[in-house]
């Protein structure tokens, strides 16, 4: 591996990558963008179809208001200009997954123009302290195509459930410089669409998809090289791998004296290499023209401000609130603001306990671990905010130990109806806070170690741990160590 990296880094001092990303997000509307068929992933093939989706003659598309509002939400979140007069365009090409022979899209009037997404990059010490703005060229609305299934028999099977799913396509300027930056940009886009509630951001199921446009040029040059598009990237990691592989390929091709061909390539996750799919057709071949079936879309001031006022809090504002209102360290705030559901859960728990830092620790630790293990989304998490809050209160009042609390947490997941207090009682997990009983144990222990007691009183204060340990043993771990500590100190200072 070291050998493979060394020539790469030599190469990268001579050439630089110029990267633009095209991200498609499927919008979380109930119905499709131009028809009333259900917009759901995973239904039986060809059950979410209508005469409009199947392009029967004489049918007319009608635009879904919510799809427009979701696209505008994203535009506002990225600081884009919102286009007030929109027309939809036909993008003409033939492929069996496209029933009409054209895709309804936007060409001259994308609904959002300009804007940026801020990403954090690592400095030379590996700390994410550098900030860059990835510039957005535009965001437009369009419909998704159906799905071709090639792997059976002599024909290609078609499922049109996906045809007509509302999409936004976000196109960046060719301003991204590295695999890391591409990955960070995608991470931020995914976080944003989830916060905005407009897309579930699932790259494996294809609700968030990314194509990479990459060219190379000698470092410091201002012209753009021949652009290659890489498709078939189903994770952020694979986008980064594809950027690295394609950069290396283009540098090696150029150094061998061969030209870069304008192509569409596909990324093979098994080999980590890109392969040519087809030579790119020129832009004009899509023969865009305004769709006569759809009336123009006008976004009024009133509509725009209504959308603006319905916007949920964005990650940056949430981060700010976590560090100021809740007083969390930046690390915690970064971790928690990663997902809107986690923040909502955090705030719900904090409504019932003032120990915000403990809540944060539980969320970043056991709650997160459970979520990963069980592949549960936060909102389906079986332990309610109230239950977690009362568990934290049990620890804070010394009723249960940290260790016992972990056990109770595990039990709560299995018994979502139970209360932490009941579980602590039922499983004998309460700390022994009976001062009389503990006092007896303390006296027994001190009587058993007269020489150590003498040493302690001569100043060897670290023997306290030994005494506490012995009392804990005698109580079979049920004693509250804080209380035991206090009782021993009192006894020895008599």
């Amino acid at each position, binding site marked *: 591996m070291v050998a493979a990296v060394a020539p790469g880094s030599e190469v990268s001092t001579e050439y630089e990558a110029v990267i633009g990303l095209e991200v498609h997000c499927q919008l979380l*509307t*109930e*119905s499709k963008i131009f*028809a*009333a*068929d*259900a917009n759901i992933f995973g239904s*039986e*093939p*060809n*059950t*979410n*179809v*209508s*005469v409009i989706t*199947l392009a029967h003659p004489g049918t007319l598309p*009608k*635009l*879904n*208001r*919510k*799809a*427009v509002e979701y696209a505008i939400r994203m535009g506002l979140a990225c600081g884009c200009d919102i286009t007030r*007069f929109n*027309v939809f365009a036909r993008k*003409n*090409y*033939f*492929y*069996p997954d496209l029933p009409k022979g054209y895709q309804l899209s936007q060409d*001259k*009037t994308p609904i959002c123009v300009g804007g940026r997404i801020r990403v954090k990059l690592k400095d030379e010490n590996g700390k994410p302290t550098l900030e860059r703005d990835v510039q957005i060229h535009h965001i437009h609305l369009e419909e998704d195509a159906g799905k*071709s*299934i*090639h792997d059976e028999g*002599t*024909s*290609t*099977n*078609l*499922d*049109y459930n996906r045809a007509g799913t509302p999409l936004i396509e976000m196109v960046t300027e060719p301003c991204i410089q590295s695999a890391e930056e591409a990955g960070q940009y995608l991470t931020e886009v995914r976080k944003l669409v989830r916060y905005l509630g407009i897309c579930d951001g699932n790259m494996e199921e294809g609700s968030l998809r990314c194509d990479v446009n990459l060219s190379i040029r000698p470092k410091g040059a201002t012209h753009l090289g021949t652009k290659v598009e890489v498709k078939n990237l189903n994770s952020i990691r694979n986008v980064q791998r594809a950027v690295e592989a394609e950069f290396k390929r283009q540098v090696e091709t150029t150094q061998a004296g061969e030209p870069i061909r304008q192509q569409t390539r*596909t990324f093979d996750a098994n080999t980590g290499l890109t392969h040519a*799919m*087809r030579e790119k057709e020129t832009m004009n*071949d899509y*023969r865009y023209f*305004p769709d*006569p079936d*759809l*009336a*123009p*879309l*006008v976004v009024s001031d009133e509509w725009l401000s209504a959308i603006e006022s319905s916007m949920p809090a964005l990650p940056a504002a949430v981060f700010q609130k976590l560090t100021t209102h809740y007083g969390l360290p930046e690390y915690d705030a970064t971790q928690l603001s990663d997902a809107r559901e986690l923040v909502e859960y955090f705030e719900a728990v904090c409504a019932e306990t003032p120990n915000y830092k403990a809540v944060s620790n539980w969320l970043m630790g056991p709650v997160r671990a459970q979520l990963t293990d069980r592949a549960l989304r936060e909102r389906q998490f079986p332990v309610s905010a109230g239950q977690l809050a009362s568990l934290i209160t049990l620890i804070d009042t010394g009723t249960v130990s940290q260790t016992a609390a972990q056990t109770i947490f595990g039990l709560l997941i299995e018994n979502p109806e139970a209360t932490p207090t009941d579980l602590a009682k039922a499983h004998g997990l309460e700390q022994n806070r009976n001062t009389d009983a503990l006092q007896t144990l303390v006296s027994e222990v001190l009587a058993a170690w007269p020489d150590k007691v003498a040493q302690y009183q001569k100043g060897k204060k670290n023997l306290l741990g030994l005494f506490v340990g012995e009392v804990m043993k005698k109580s079979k771990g049920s004693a509250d160590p804080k209380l035991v500590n206090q009782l021993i100190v009192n006894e020895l200072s008599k």
Partner: protein
Amino acid sequence: MKVDKETLQKIAHLARLEVRPEEEAELLNSLNGVLNWMEQLNEVDTTGVEPLMHISPDLNVLRDDAVANHLPRAQALANAPQHDETFFQVPKVME
């Protein structure tokens, strides 16, 4: 602008139309006739005229986001030249 043989074959290909060599002359004549006729518009002074992007008299014809009007699958598939009980089918296409 003038359409030549190469452009004719290119747009025919994009529209998936087959144009036989003996049809070329007539089609070129006809397409160029249309373009020449349209070129008269270049004589009009359009200074200060907003470009017309759409001829619809309506604006904002929108629907609420509600599910309705599904076709039963059997009915959806019925008109397809080739299908099984689940899928529409076409001759094998591979990229």
